[in-house]
C-alpha cells in the first residue's frame, strides 16, 4: 500500500508581485491513476501545472518523481522527467502530417526518416485506437483527433505523467467518449494522468481521485466514490454543506413584476445550445454554474457577439433581429465581456478613449463627441467608480486589472443601456469596490434598468439577483427564485438532483 507514488508535490509555494498564487500546496499522483485537478478561478490550477511543466519556477516546495527528487527549470526538464502536457489550444502544427507532428523536434538527424515515422505512428495510432492515419494532414482532422495525436506523441515519448489541461472543452459527446477510452487505455499501461477540467459529470465518469484547490490553497484530496457531487461543488466554492444549511435565509427578494423587456425563444449560436430566456424591466437576474458551464456563451448569444444560428427575439414586445453587437446596442443592450483583455480593453488607447468608445459607436461615425465632452465624461466616471489612474490620458494597458475593469464598466454605463449584461464584473476587483458594484446594480434596477449579473461568487449574485438561472455543462438545468435563492439550493442544482427544469 505504501509504494512510492509516481509524482509527489509537497509544500509548493509560488508568489507573483502582490499575490500568493500557491500556498503550501500538496499533490500526489499514483501511476495508473486518473486524477482530477479542480478549482474555480484563481484557485491556482494553472499555476500548479505551469510549475510542473517547467514554465514557472517555484518559490518553495519539492517535486518528486518515482521517489527521486527532481528540479524542473524548463519545459525540456519536464519532458526529460517524463512529464508531458497536452494543452487546450492545440500545440501542434496543423499544416504537417500526423506522423510528423508526432516526431518533429525530437530527432537529431539530418534527414527525416519519413517511412519510419509513418510506420511507428500508424502502430501507435491503432494501438490507441485513434481514428487517424499517419499520412493525413493534421489540420484535416477534427479537434478531438488532433488532441489525441498530441497525446499519442506524449505516449510515444514514454511519458510517465500525462497532464491534460481542459481537453474536453471543445469536444462533443462522442469525441469525449473517444478521449476517455484512450485515457483508460493509458491508465491500464501505468501512465498517471492529471485531468484538469471543470466538467463535473466527466470527472465522475472517468476519474479515480479528485484534488480541489481554492484561492491558492489545498482544500483536499478525495477518492471519487467518497465525494458526492454536491459536496464537491461546495468544496470548490468554499462552503461546507452543513454550514450552508445552517445559514439563515437571506431576505427574500421580490421577483420583479412588470413588462418583459427582452425575450428569446430557441436562441442558439455557434457556441450555445438552443435556449429560452426572458428578463423583465428593472429585474436583476443572474446565470450561475461552474466555470465553463455555458454562462458566457449564453449571454454572448443574447448580445449577438457570436454568430447567431437560430431563435426569435423580442425587445419590449417587438420582434427584432440581433445578429451583431451594434443591433443589440441599438436596442439598448450593453455587454461587459468576461475576458477583458481579449474582448474589452483597447490597450494602447487612453482611459478616456476607452470610456467613450461604445457611446461614440452608438452616436455614429459622423458625430464625434467633442474633446471637452469626452474629458468631462471620463472625469465623471473616474470619480464615480474611483478609477485609479495617473490621468485620463494614461493608456489603459498600464492600469491594474481591477481598474481596467472599472473603465470598461464606465464605458457601458455611459451608454445608459436599458439592459446591461455584466459577465464577471467583479473579477480581480478589491472587496470594497465589489460591494460598490453590487450596490450599483441594485440602483440601476431601481431606475428601471434590467441587469444580468454573472459572477463566480454566488453570494454576490444572491445579494443582488431576484432570479438565478442555473447552468451545467452547457445546458440550463434550473431556475431559482424566491425562497430557493440560497447557497445550498444553488449548490444542489448545479450539482444535479432536484429542481431540474425539463429541456
Amino acid at each position: 500500500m505504501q509504494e512510492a507514488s509516481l509524482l509527489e508535490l509537497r509544500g509548493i509555494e509560488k508568489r507573483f508581485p502582490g499575490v500568493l498564487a500557491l500556498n503550501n500546496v500538496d499533490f500526489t499522483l499514483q501511476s495508473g491513476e486518473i486524477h482530477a485537478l479542480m478549482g474555480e478561478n484563481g484557485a491556482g490550477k494553472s499555476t500548479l501545472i505551469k510549475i510542473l511543466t517547467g514554465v514557472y519556477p517555484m518559490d518553495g516546495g519539492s517535486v518528486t518523481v518515482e521517489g527521486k527528487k527532481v528540479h524542473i527549470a524548463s519545459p525540456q526538464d519536464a519532458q526529460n522527467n517524463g512529464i508531458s502536457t497536452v494543452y487546450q489550444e492545440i500545440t501542434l502544427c496543423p499544416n504537417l502530417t500526423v506522423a510528423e507532428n508526432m516526431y518533429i523536434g525530437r530527432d537529431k538527424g539530418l534527414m527525416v526518416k519519413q517511412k519510419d515515422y509513418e510506420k511507428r505512428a500508424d502502430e501507435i495510432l491503432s494501438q490507441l485506437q485513434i481514428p487517424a492515419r499517419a499520412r493525413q494532414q493534421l489540420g484535416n482532422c477534427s479537434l478531438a483527433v488532433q488532441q489525441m495525436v498530441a497525446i499519442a506523441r506524449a505516449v510515444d515519448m514514454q511519458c510517465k505523467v500525462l497532464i491534460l489541461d481542459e481537453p474536453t472543452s471543445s469536444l462533443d459527446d462522442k469525441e469525449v467518449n473517444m478521449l476517455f477510452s484512450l485515457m483508460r487505455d493509458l491508465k491500464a499501461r501505468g501512465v498517471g494522468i492529471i485531468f484538469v477540467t471543470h466538467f463535473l459529470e466527466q470527472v465522475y465518469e472517468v476519474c479515480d481521485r479528485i484534488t480541489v484547490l481554492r484561492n491558492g490553497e489545498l482544500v483536499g484530496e478525495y477518492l471519487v466514490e467518497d465525494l458526492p457531487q454536491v459536496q464537491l461543488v461546495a468544496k470548490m466554492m468554499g462552503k461546507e454543506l452543513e454550514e450552508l444549511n445552517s445559514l439563515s435565509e437571506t431576505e427574500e427578494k421580490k421577483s420583479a413584476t412588470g413588462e418583459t423587456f427582452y425575450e428569446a425563444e430557441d436562441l442558439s449560436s455557434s457556441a450555445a445550445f438552443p435556449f429560452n430566456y426572458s428578463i423583465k424591466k428593472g429585474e436583476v437576474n443572474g446565470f450561475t454554474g461552474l466555470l465553463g458551464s455555458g454562462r458566457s456563451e449564453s449571454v454572448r448569444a443574447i448580445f449577438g457577439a457570436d454568430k447567431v444560428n437560430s431563435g426569435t427575439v423580442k425587445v419590449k414586445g417587438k420582434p427584432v433581429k440581433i445578429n451583431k453587437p451594434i443591433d443589440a446596442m441599438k436596442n439598448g443592450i450593453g455587454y461587459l465581456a468576461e475576458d477583458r483583455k481579449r474582448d474589452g480593453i483597447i490597450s494602447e488607447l487612453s482611459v478616456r478613449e476607452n470610456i467613450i468608445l461604445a457611446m461614440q459607436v452608438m452616436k455614429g461615425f459622423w458625430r464625434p463627441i467633442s474633446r471637452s465632452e469626452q474629458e468631462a465624461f471620463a472625469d465623471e466616471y473616474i470619480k464615480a467608480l474611483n478609477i485609479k489612474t495617473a490621468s485620463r490620458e494614461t493608456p489603459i494597458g498600464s492600469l491594474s486589472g481591477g481598474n481596467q475593469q472599472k473603465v470598461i464598466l464606465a464605458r457601458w454605463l455611459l451608454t445608459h443601456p436599458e439592459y446591461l449584461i455584466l459577465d464577471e464584473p467583479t473579477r480581480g476587483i478589491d472587496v470594497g469596490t465589489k460591494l460598490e458594484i453590487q450596490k450599483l446594480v441594485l440602483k440601476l434596477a431601481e431606475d428601471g434598468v434590467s441587469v444580468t449579473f454573472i459572477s463566480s461568487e454566488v453570494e454576490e449574485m444572491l445579494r443582488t439577483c431576484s432570479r438565478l438561472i442555473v447552468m451545467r455543462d452547457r445546458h440550463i438545468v434550473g431556475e431559482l427564485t424566491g425562497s430557493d435563492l440560497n447557497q445550498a439550493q444553488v449548490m444542489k442544482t448545479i450539482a444535479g438532483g432536484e429542481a431540474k427544469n425539463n429541456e
Partner: protein
Amino acid sequence: MSKKRSIGQILGPLAIPLIAIGILVIFNLIRDPEFFSIVIKHNNDGNAVLAGNLISIVNGASELAILAMGMTIVTAACGGQDISVGAAAAIAGSMFVKVLKSVQEITGVTVVLAFLAACVIAMIFGAFNGTLVAVFKIQPMIATLILYTCGRSIAYWINGGATPSVESSILNAWGSFIPGIPIPTPVLIVILMAIIFGLLFKFTSLRLFTQSVGINESAAKLNGINATWIKLLSFIILGVCVAVAGTIGVSRLGLINHETLLLDVEMDTILAVAIGGNSLGGGRFRLSGSIIGAYVIQMLTITLYAMKVPSTDVKAYKAIVIVILVVIGSPVVKKKFSKFVGDLRRKRAARSENSEKGAA
C-alpha cells in the same frame, strides 16, 4: 507635473523621426553652413520664388508626404502595407491627362473635373484593394501585389499607349508655382492635405475607430464597430491621396509617363510610415510622424546629392541609414540596452552603498 508629462507624451513617439532630422540638419550645417539658406530667385515666368536646398527638400517630398498620410491610415487599420500606390498614382495621373487632352481648352473648371476623374478612378481601385483585404481577408501586401503588377500597364492603356504631355499655365501653377506665391504649390498642397486630415479627425470618429480596429479587432467589433467598413474606408482614403500625388507628379513635368511616375515610391512611403514611429503591424498612429518621416527620407537624399554622391549610389546609403534606425528600434536591442543601463545603475548603487558601509 502634468504639463511635463504631456510634452513628453506628445514628443515621445516622434522621437526617432525628430532625432533623425536633427542629426541630418546638424550634419549639413557642419558641412556647409549655407546649406539651408533660402534665396529668392526668379523662375521662368519671371516671378519671384524661394529657392535653395531647404526648398528642394520640402518641395520634392510632397508626393511622398501625401502618400504617407494615406498609407498610415491603411497600415493602422489593416496591419499591412499597400505596395501598389506608385502604380495607382500612375493610373490616376493618366486619367487626369486623358480628361485634359479631351477638352478643347484647359480652364480652371476642366482641371478640377480632370482631378475629380482621377480621384474617382483611384478610389475605385482603392476599393478593389480594400475589398480583397476587408472581405476576403487577404493580407494587404498580397492583395496589392495585383495592382502593383498591372497598374502601370493599365495607366499605359488609358492613354492608348502614349505618354502624352499637356501644356497649361494652370498645371504649371499646380505643379510648381502659383504666380505671386513664392512657396512651391506642392508644399501648399501638403499643408492643405494635412489640414483636411485634421478636419477629418476632428469631425468624424475616424481616428478612434481606425485605431481600435488596428489594436484589437475583436474588442472593436464587440463595441459595435464595423471593422470591414473601416478597413475599406482606409483604402479609399489612400485612393484620394494617390490621386492628389499622381496629379502633382504629372503637373510638375507636364506629361505622364506611366513607367517613371513615382517609380518605387511605395517602398519610400512604407519607410516614411515606419520612420514616423508607427507600427507596421497596425494600431495607434501619428500622421505627423509619417509626414516628418517623408521629409527625413527626402532630406537624406538631398544631403547625399549635396555631397556629390551620384544618384545611382544613393540607394545604398539610404539602406545603411534605414538599417541603423531599425536596429536601434528593434525590441531585442532595446531590451538589451535597458538591461545594460539597469545593470550599470545597480552597480553604481551597490558601489555607493559599499562606500557608505565602509565609511560607517
